[in-house]
């Protein structure tokens, strides 16, 4: 458990970090977003619930660090047609919590909720998710070591999800 004082300081740093991530995602600043990740980062958007085994079952996204880089490089080509033109996005991040159970390796377990409004060529789409992070201090900066995005409707048929969620 963190002391109350250190947890307040950490909470404000984490909150600022998550808001920054959200803004970079909304504004399609792909390279800046990629720099938020640790070298061993894992980006996971499960399908069919929150607790599937991603090594055995299909996920919507289950990217290791090199696949995160590939995802960003594809977006950067300008020919990833599903994001050409780019979706207009704004998301609200809320319910940010430092979790009671913290990892032993010094990573910081954080969770938040997100509500994302996407306007694309197809239509307007509302997305909602629980986001679970493991953040890590690297050279004095917070970085994402693990991000799990549990879409509320991940058991249903969903439209193309080609922006950074």
């Amino acid at each position, binding site marked *: 458990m963190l002391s109350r004082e250190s947890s307040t300081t950490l909470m404000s740093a984490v909150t600022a970090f998550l808001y920054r991530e959200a803004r970079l995602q909304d504004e399609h600043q792909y390279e800046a977003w990629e720099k938020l990740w640790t070298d061993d980062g894992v980006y996971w958007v499960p399908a*069919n619930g929150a607790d599937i085994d991603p090594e055995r079952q*299909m996920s919507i996204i289950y990217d290791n660090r090199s696949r995160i880089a590939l995802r960003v490089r*594809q977006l950067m*080509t300008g*020919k990833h047609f599903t994001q050409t033109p780019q979706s207009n996005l704004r998301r609200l991040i809320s319910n940010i919590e430092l979790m009671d159970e913290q990892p032993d390796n010094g990573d910081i377990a954080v969770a938040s909720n997100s509500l994302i409004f996407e306007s694309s060529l*197809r239509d307007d789409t509302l997305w909602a998710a629980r986001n679970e992070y493991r953040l890590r201090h690297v050279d004095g900066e917070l970085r994402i070591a693990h991000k799990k995005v549990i879409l509320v409707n991940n058991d249903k048929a969903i439209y*193309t999800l*080609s922006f950074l969620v």
Partner: protein
Amino acid sequence: MNMMTGVSPWERLIRPDRVHGSLYTDPEIFEAELKNIWYRTWVYVGHESEVPNANDYVVKSIGPQSVIMTRDEQGKVNLLLNRCSHRGNQVCSFERGNARSFTCPFHSWTFANDGRLVGYAFPDGYEGQDKAQLALGRVTRVESYRGFVFGSFAADGPTLKEHLGGAAETIDRLVRTSPEGEVEITAGFLKHRVKANWKFILENECDGYHPAFVHTSIFGVADSMIGKLYGGASTALTRDYGNGHTEIDLRPEFRKRDAPMSWFGTSEERLPDYTARMKAAYGDTAAREIMIDGTPHVMIFPNLFIAEIQMFVIQPLGVDDSVQHVTALQFKGAPDLNRRLRQQTMGSVGPAGFLLADDSEMYERCHRGVLARNPEWIFLGRGEKRQRQDELGFTVGHVTDEVPSRGIWTHYRKLMEPA
């Protein structure tokens, strides 16, 4: 038939080298398709490996209808309609499970997992009623081919084997990729919804003309060898098997490479366990041939698409509302291969897939595009002059030619025209 002209409406809408845009957007045509295609011909529903044990069930679909695929206590696979025979309530609300019976929550009618009505609440009100008359509805005919379970609502008509025709051989080829000769569907499905007519999906599956353009963003950054397969100089083929089944046959290119597992961008050295099991199962020569040829790229009309490493099931929900259910193919006795198949599939397909996000964007743009009324037609004439018959008599063309679309529409017209 139009009494004035003697020309059927389908003949006007479907020409040898073009089809009318309204075929994708007219709600009345969609309703006619449900009746004449989805609720009549053989439609792929599920795979036997999804219900491995007695009393297992999984909820599937035929078009908008919910279908419960069960394995009953005798081991038989049933396709039951998810509709209480009393007042129509859905009797099953979970996607999968293990249950001997389904109890309707409305008035507690209970059905065995082979569809029989086994009991209703307060039975004294049903004096003299024959329970056998009140079973769950079922898909009229159920047949399976190498574990792939199909259903047809028509009491009569071609057998599944007759329907599959020449395309059955592609499924034979597929299962040989397993050292035990069996596909397993065990990795769960991604469900990708598109606001587009189902036939844009159907026709794109064996369209070898688009990858070089639609997928240029990922081919450019991923060192993919796929791009070359669909280039102007490719020796790969498009094939029309008849009955609406179409294929992109990539074997000519893989045979030129002459390297086992090159079809999957890997090698025997990287899959030592799989290679050893294949050689033990088939012998060195046949195993080598199978591992060079790879798995098929085949669209079984109207809804089962086997795309080398994954399987898609197309579900139409409305004239402009469709779902692609997709999962990694898994081969019995091939754990090291299966792991890679899952990884590759997750990267490529589904709502956030490197490939399918762009394909689906095209489906949706096409659907909006054809709402424009001029030109009225979709032109499908590519390669019409250079198509030929292969040694088995099936029409083949260059990998980028529109042989598959023409084959699909020829069959579609037969199904839609009144007998």
